[in-house]
């Protein structure tokens, strides 16, 4: 039950953490002026009137960075248990972890050689 008590604290923390920013925003709702008009609410583009859709075409490069990040992030699912247990492990486990990281480094090297990591 100790485990769940620690998490109960986190649960209460999650509930409270929303209240802290909510309070001043709600408070300012009562204090601040409310005088909206069309000009004020225009999209801000340094005084120039906005042209076309907000939805401009983005480079695929953003997706590639997120992709490489995703792969390394999922790798952590295995590396963190490996690191936690590391002091109790033997040379075989070191080899297994080495191979694991080496395979992923391969992917990084491939992306590098293919210029997939360049900001164009």
């Amino acid at each position, binding site marked *: 039950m100790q485990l769940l008590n620690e998490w109960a604290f986190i649960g209460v923390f999650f509930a409270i953490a929303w209240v802290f920013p909510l309070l001043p925003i709600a408070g300012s709702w009562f204090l601040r002026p409310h005088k909206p008009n069309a000009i004020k609410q225009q999209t801000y583009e340094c005084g120039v009137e906005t042209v076309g859709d907000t939805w401009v075409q983005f480079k*695929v490069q953003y*997706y590639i960075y997120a*992709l490489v990040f*995703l*792969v390394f*992030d*999922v790798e952590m*699912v*295995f590396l963190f248990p490996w690191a936690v247990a590391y002091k109790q492990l033997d040379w075989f486990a070191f080899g297994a972890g080495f191979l694991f990281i080496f395979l992923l480094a391969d992917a990084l090297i491939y992306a590098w050689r293919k210029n997939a990591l360049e900001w164009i």
Partner: protein
Amino acid sequence: MIALWMYLLVAAALFCIGIYGVLSRRNAVSILMSIELMLNAVNINLVAFWRYLTPQNMGGQAFTAFVFVIAAAEAAVGLAIIISVYRNRKSVIVEDVNLLKW
């Protein structure tokens, strides 16, 4: 404590929601999101069975970790295909991608 069948019921409901999404949506990204929901339903089942039946055996947790890998790989490649298809055919509606259809 909450009984095992309650977890299974929620997981089953999530799985069926995912099935509905996969079958009914036209947008490929939506379909992919529905598949993620189904994978999560499977994960709930794996962890729930592990906790209630074999809490000292690592099978449940290890397989959940592998499901994470599958989900990530599927999302990465699936979304890459969607982006590629969009670039060539300017559409992400699955019914429009009918080049290989008989």
